[in-house]
């Protein structure tokens, strides 16, 4: 090997030396190189320089022999094994924690509450994300929703979760990649009742109005994983008039007896009669988007022409694709498929919705149950994460603010031989200890909060079984490790960087950089709190806005009863009888009948257009059958024309309709006055209907949703809801029992269930109410933790400036001047935080509000007020310490050495 350099010649090859240095540690290198140098000198004399260099290289190469044992370093002070120091680290950390109670308290409170909130939210989020994952075929199952309009550019409100009955069978016969399909039809689609009657143990007939049931096809049981404990899943629902009960429904009806083979009587619109129990299944898990107590065989619905309908869109359709099928490829073939059956002019479209995505992402019309909201879940997660980050920032800030105090310790440790890695480890251990204690505290908090709060807001999802789950421990340990590292690394770097001599001489000063970092962190932290406060304020205001907006319809003091299903053809008479009976007590002020009630999806829809018009696009209107009392009873405002009255009952029936403004707009009529007398057609078929009145739009659903085109028509069947207005203030139990008596008299033997309409309507805001509650809690926690951090930082800032304060006071500064001086920094922090928070929260808030059809009118107030409030809270929280410092007699400060 040739040497690249020429001079100086009389020295050993540098490259070889470098190689040695690379491979051996300093001690070894010294002695090896020394030995080699000695040989080199001798050889130069004996054999000449060139040969000596060659031999040098050879010797060095021999040292590369992997078997050449390296010398174990034997240092004057042996390095203890890594774990031996752990005990010392833990000891000093716990001493440290006990000595600084304020900081330990702030850190533990912040980290503990942050972790508790985070861990509970993670559980809730995991639950929400677990919907429908228990089905073995979940990957291959899709729901096929239905749109009356082209999907792109169409009205998203016209997307139905359900489909037309003819779709499923046609799809399965046309596409071999469809392994199975099932239609699912809710029992209360046609009529708002499903009376289930059974004979109990003592031989009495008992009736219930049930709503948790579906007609399903036999494939349902094999596609989905709802395990049967009795019966055969292949045949259980094959025959008409068969029923499969869940375990708890079976127990409710038949006690401990095996109900298979027994019958229950079901009164429903079409397929009434005795149903034979053919199977029992496990209760439906809570994380299933399909919730039911029993399943009826689809065959019970009969095979009438209606089953071949391509327009009746109330049949949920689920398909199972063969494994490996590309759903996109199938989806692409669907428009052609629809045209094949509906003609070229067919405008409606369908798409495939993965089963597991339904709960969080699907918000279509006519969902089977109230779905979760991905938006809410994400916001919750972000907020919980923010709280955790705010708590971590506290730890970082307080630890680095205290670095000065510990500089001497660092100095001593370094002087007796601790290297930087050892110190780094020490401060990390401290972070792990603090975070670990915070985790314990978080668990205590969770245990306390579960019965008080958590169980309620999560709807029972999070309970004590939490602690037995890996899904709790993994995030917990993850948060512990991540938190310790994130919050421990910066202080560890800072503290381990001190030079021992300076540290021991007390020459370490806070660097401008460190101070800047802390201020930046504190400002960001506060900005996050302000943003959370603003966001929560808006969520709260939107909630309040929705709850207190004039709905355009009077829902108060209204008791709603369902008319019985078995009333039969004579029900009209019974209804009148009930009306007379129920209005007898003075507390009952009115009664009205309708086929649908506010707060519930109107399930009767038709396509409506004006006579002789070539109307394009969406023609879907929602029909509500009403009696003549309905419009005045609910205080609906007539804009033009008249409502239905007893005088015109004969001419109105089947002839007249009343439209709301949306419906009016849909058929292309401008003014309410001009609309009176216009003729419209439903589904393009006679009879022609005359518009006799126009009512002002009212909110039939929550303000989350837009107002739908609604058409009122005079109902003659009497199957629906009776609204009874009662004086709640008067003796309510007596009134209720009077209503019950009237019902029993008019409809003997029929089950009665009733509810208050305003409560029912407000149930739509249940999720909102929960959001408000949780978000408020989070905002409060965030502000609290951030304020704790400020208190800590202020304490330190004051401690560092005591002499300055003393000197200033000696020179005549008064308490106020000193306080102002001390608060100046804080004010700046808070102001900057506000400036950072406003644009950010503006963007977030807009995103949040986009979801609602009726939005709170935003104004600067929503930003200024929370910002100001949080700032005031911050100032108040440090006021005590500031005033204390400002009031202390200067001598006390100046006497200190």
């Amino acid at each position, binding site marked *: 090997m040739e040497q690249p350099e020429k001079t100086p010649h009389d020295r050993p090859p540098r490259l070889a030396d470098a190689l040695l240095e690379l491979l051996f540690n300093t001690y070894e290198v*010294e*002695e*090896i190189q020394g*030995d080699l*140098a*000695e040989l080199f000198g001798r050889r130069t004399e004996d054999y000449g320089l060139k040969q000596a260099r060659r031999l040098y290289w050879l*010797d060095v190469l021999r*040292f590369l022999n992997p078997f*050449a*044992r390296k010398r174990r370093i034997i240092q004057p002070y042996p390095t203890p094994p890594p774990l031996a120091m752990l005990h010392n680290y833990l000891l000093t950390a716990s001493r440290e924690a006990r000595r600084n109670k304020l900081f330990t308290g702030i850190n533990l409170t912040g980290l503990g509450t942050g972790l508790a909130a985070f861990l509970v939210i993670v559980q809730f989020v995991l639950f929400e994300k677990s919907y429908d994952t228990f089905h073995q075929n979940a990957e291959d199952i899709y729901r096929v929703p239905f749109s009356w309009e082209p999907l792109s550019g169409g009205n998203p409100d016209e997307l139905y979760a359900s489909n037309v009955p003819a779709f499923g069978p046609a799809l399965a016969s046309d596409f071999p990649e469809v392994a199975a399909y099932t239609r699912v039809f809710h029992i209360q689609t046609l009529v708002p009742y499903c009376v289930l009657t059974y004979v109990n143990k003592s031989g009495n007939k008992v009736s219930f109005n049930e709503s948790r049931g579906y007609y399903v096809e036999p494939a349902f049981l094999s596609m989905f994983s709802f395990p049967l404990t009795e019966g055969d899943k292949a045949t259980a629902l094959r025959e008409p008039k068969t029923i499969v009960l869940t375990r708890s429904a079976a127990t409710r009806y038949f006690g401990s007896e095996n109900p298979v083979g027994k019958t229950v009587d079901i009164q429903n619109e079409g397929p009434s009669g005795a149903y034979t129990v053919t199977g029992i299944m496990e209760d439906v898990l809570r994380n299933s988007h399909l919730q039911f107590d029993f399943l009826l065989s689809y065959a019970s619905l009969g095979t009438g022409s209606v089953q071949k309908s391509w327009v009746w869109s109330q049949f949920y359709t689920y398909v199972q694709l063969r494994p490996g099928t590309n759903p996109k490829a199938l989806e692409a073939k669907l428009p052609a498929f629809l045209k094949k059956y509906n003609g070229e002019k067919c405008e409606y479209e369908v798409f495939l919705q993965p089963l597991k995505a339904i709960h969080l992402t699907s918000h279509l019309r006519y969902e089977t149950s109230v779905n979760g909201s991905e938006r809410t879940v994400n916001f919750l997660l972000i907020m919980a994460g923010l709280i955790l980050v705010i708590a971590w920032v506290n730890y970082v800030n307080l630890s680095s603010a205290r670095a000065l105090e510990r500089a001497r310790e660092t100095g001593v440790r370094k002087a007796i031989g601790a290297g930087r890695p050892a110190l780094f480890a020490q401060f990390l251990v401290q972070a792990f200890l603090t975070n670990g204690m915070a985790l314990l505290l978080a668990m205590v908090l969770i245990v306390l909060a579960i019965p008080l709060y958590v169980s309620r807001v999560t709807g029972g999802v999070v309970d004590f079984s939490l602690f037995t789950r890996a899904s709790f421990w993994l995030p917990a340990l993850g948060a512990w490790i991540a938190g310790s590292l994130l919050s421990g690394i910066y202080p560890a770097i800072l503290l381990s960087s001190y030079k021992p001599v300076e540290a021991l001489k007390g020459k370490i000063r806070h660097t401008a950089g460190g101070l800047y970092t802390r201020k930046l962190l504190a400002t960001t932290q506060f900005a996050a709190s302000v943003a959370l406060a603003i966001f929560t304020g808006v969520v709260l205001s939107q909630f309040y806005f929705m709850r207190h907006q004039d709905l355009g319809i009077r829902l108060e003091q209204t008791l709603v009863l369902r008319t019985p299903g078995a009333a039969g053809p004579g029900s009209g008479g019974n209804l009148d009888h009930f009306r007379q009976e129920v209005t007898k007590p003075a507390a009952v002020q009115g009664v009205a009948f309708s086929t649908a009630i506010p707060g519930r999806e109107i399930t009767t829809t038709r396509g409506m257009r004006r006579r002789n018009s070539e109307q394009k696009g969406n023609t879907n209107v929602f029909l509500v059958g009403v009696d003549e009392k309905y419009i005045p009873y609910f205080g609906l405002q007539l804009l033009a024309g008249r409502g239905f009255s007893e005088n015109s009952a004969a001419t109105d029936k089947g002839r007249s309709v009343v439209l709301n403004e949306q419906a009016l707009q849909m058929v292309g009529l401008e003014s309410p006055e001009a609309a009176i007398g216009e003729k419209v057609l439903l589904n393009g078929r006679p009879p022609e209907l005359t518009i006799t009145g126009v009512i002002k739009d009212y909110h039939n659903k929550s303000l989350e949703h837009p107002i739908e085109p609604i058409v009122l028509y005079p109902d003659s069947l009497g199957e629906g809801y009776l609204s009874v207005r009662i004086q709640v203030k008067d003796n309510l139990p007596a009134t209720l029992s009077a209503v019950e008596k009237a019902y029993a008299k008019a409809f003997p033997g029929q089950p009665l269930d009733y509810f208050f309409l305003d409560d029912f309507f407000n149930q739509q805001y249940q999720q909102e109410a929960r959001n408000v509650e949780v978000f408020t809690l989070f905002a409060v926690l965030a502000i609290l933790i951030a304020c704790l951090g400020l208190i800590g930082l202020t304490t330190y800032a004051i401690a560092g400036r005591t002499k300055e304060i003393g000197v200033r006071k000696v020179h005549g500064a008064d308490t106020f001047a000193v306080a102002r001086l001390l608060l100046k920094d804080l004010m700046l922090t808070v102001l900057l935080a506000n400036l950072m928070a406003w644009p950010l929260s503006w963007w977030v808030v807009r995103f949040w509000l986009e979801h609602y059809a009726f939005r709170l009118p935003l104004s600067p107030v929503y930003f200024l007020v929370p910002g100001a409030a949080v700032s005031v809270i911050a100032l108040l929280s440090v006021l005590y310490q500031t005033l204390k410092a400002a009031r202390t007699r200067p001598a006390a400060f100046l006497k200190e050495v």
Partner: protein
Amino acid sequence: MKGTYLGEFEEIVLLAVCVLHEDAYGVSITDEINIRTGRPAHLSAVHTALYRLEEKGLVSSELGGATQARGGRRKRLFRVTAAGKTALREARELRNQFWNRIPAVVWEGGAI
């Protein structure tokens, strides 16, 4: 005993350390072996053996004696420990036992 077993080369290195008393380090030991045995011992092999002996506690070492010839670098000076002496004595004892038990006839008759 496995830990104190002395290999042949190790034994020679250890003997060299004893011989060189107070001046035993890499180069001097290598020289000593080269001269006495006439076989070319390499510095790296000697170092390895020395380290192994040190791990076994048969020699101890300290740094010292920087010279101009070494470019100002210190040398590691080795010294035999009590355990090292015992190990050498045992090795010698072992050989002696074998020597003593060789029948005289072996020497007299010569090799086969």
